[in-house]
């Protein structure tokens, strides 16, 4: 309890505003109530829907096992909030502690949580992006529209970008018997997140399932017919693919524009915060009333050299939201750091892919168990002589063990024998990540420097 009782007052009658009513926003709201926050809670979200879950959008929904309007997140407890849905926040006045809304309203806060996430990076040529049959996949509306057009039985689908989302879309299409071409600028799918050694396996999986996978090429132009529907895509190698559905899957952009000029350290790379989820302002000074969580945040992680991590991971949004909520209602000595070990899953071509740690920091990989050719293996990533990440293809049961090695900064390569070690796993090999200075569409973990505001960074969109 604070000396002047201000924390008690905050808990009793304070005003907490959450901007971004999705996974992180909802879990934070629930945690605030669980911790006894009895004041007013306002949830501001630009989508007109209650918080829903995104991972099923590229899996169950595209497979026809669920509809996009039936992916609402369960409520773990009552949040008793004022919901302002369908209204974007358009500005922040840090001095007056006020959030401006698009409808002209202003909402005052004592504590603010920013959880505005990311959006799909659009196809850079606007007129081509507007052709009928060209999609991105981030929201419930996106998924509904895409599913509808897949249900009409397109002759061929083109997926531009073979990150996790693009690969899952291709997988769902194949399962529905739809012809698919995947265009990837790198040498293989998933290389941004998992490196070339594992990317090769991902490529094999795609081809085995009948995907027309084209790597090392870019899509240079989308062509429409006279009715304004996409009909073909032109590639950098001079070839053309006829497709009536095109999904642009080139990664994400952080939703921070609404904070421009506010003085908060928000930019293209997200919003920098300290390990306690408190946002930095542009001077690099940490605020005490503004918190950040989820895909839009980047926060320093002690296990990874205090590098600022931006993680587009479901589990990160949950864990960071809970920590932010806890810290909002705590005295400084009671605050907790967000030291969640990154973890991720994906399901594609019948294989369960999971990872822990930060594989993309790895310079070497050891196939510690199983075999790549059987598409069932555990890869362990090493960085400067320690275990930094791990990935499993259909070997979930081993992941926990490697997570412990990461948490305890165990030496790489691991000094002990493992079950089911094959000849290919005798020696580490280069993990083969693309040059980090070349922007790729799909690393789900982005490492960046210490500067809280990176406005100087310019992104050159992949000209696929």
């Amino acid at each position: 309890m604070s000396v002047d009782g201000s924390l008690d007052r905050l808990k009793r009658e304070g005003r907490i505003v959450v901007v971004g009513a999705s996974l992180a926003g909802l879990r934070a709201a629930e945690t605030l109530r669980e911790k006894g926050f009895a004041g007013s809670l306002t949830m501001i979200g630009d989508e007109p829907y209650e918080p829903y879950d995104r991972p099923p959008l590229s899996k169950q929904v595209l497979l026809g096992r669920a509809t996009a309007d039936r992916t609402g997140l369960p409520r773990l407890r009552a949040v008793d909030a004022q919901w302002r849905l369908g209204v974007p926040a358009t500005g922040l006045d840090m001095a007056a502690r006020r959030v401006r809304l698009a409808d002209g309203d202003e909402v005052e806060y004592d504590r603010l949580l920013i959880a505005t996430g990311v959006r799909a990076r659009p196809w850079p040529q606007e007129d081509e992006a507007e052709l009928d049959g060209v999609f991105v996949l981030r929201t419930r509306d996106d998924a509904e529209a895409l599913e509808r057009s897949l249900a009409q039985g397109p002759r061929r689908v083109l997926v531009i970008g073979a990150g996790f989302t693009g690969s899952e879309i291709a997988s769902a299409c194949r399962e529905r018997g739809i012809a698919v071409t995947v265009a990837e600028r790198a040498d293989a799918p998933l290389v941004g997140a998992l490196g070339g050694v594992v990317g090769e396996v991902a490529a094999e999986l795609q081809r085995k399932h009948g995907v027309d996978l084209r790597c090392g090429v870019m899509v240079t132009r989308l062509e429409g017919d006279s009715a304004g529907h996409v009909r073909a895509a032109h590639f950098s190698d001079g070839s053309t693919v006829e497709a009536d559905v095109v999904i642009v899957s080139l990664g994400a952009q952080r939703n921070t524009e609404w904070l421009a000029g506010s003085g908060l350290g928000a930019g293209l790379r997200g919003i920098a915060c300290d390990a306690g989820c408190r946002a930095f302002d542009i001077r690099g000074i940490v605020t005490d009333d503004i918190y950040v969580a989820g895909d839009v945040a980047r926060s320093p992680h002690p296990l990874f050299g205090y590098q600022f991590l931006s993680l587009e991971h479901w589990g990160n949004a949950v864990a960071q939201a809970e920590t932010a909520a806890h810290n909002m209602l705590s005295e400084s000595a009671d605050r907790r750091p967000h030291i969640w070990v990154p973890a991720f899953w994906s399901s594609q071509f019948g294989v369960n892919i999971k990872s822990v740690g930060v594989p993309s920091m790895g310079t070497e990989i050891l196939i510690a168990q199983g075999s790549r050719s059987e598409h069932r293996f555990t890869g362990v990533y090493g960085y400067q002589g320690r275990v930094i990440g791990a990935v499993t293809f259909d070997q979930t049961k081993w992941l926990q063990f490697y997570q412990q090695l990461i948490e305890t900064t165990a030496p790489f390569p691991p000094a002990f024998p493992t079950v089911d070690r094959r000849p290919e796993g005798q020696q580490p090999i280069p993990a083969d990540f693309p040059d980090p200075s070349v922007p790729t569409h799909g690393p789900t973990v982005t490492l960046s420097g210490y500067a809280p505001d990176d406005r100087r960074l310019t992104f050159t969109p992949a000209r696929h």
Partner: protein
Amino acid sequence: MRLVVDLNRCQGYAQCAFLAPDVFAMHGDESLLYRPEVEEDRREDMARAVAACPVQAIMVDANSPGGNPGSDREAGR
């Protein structure tokens, strides 16, 4: 009622799939696919699945006396 499975936690033990095969199903050897929303009268089934999951990965709408805490009533302002 709505449900979500924390698939970072899920170990693919498939206990849930034995209990409610129309809601939870293995897809391939280790991937779990589930229906994110099921009929309200399945609450007991879901409670059983939640209890059976050895890693507590399944989360469902909390059951509160006044109805579902997250019903559509709450949307709007």
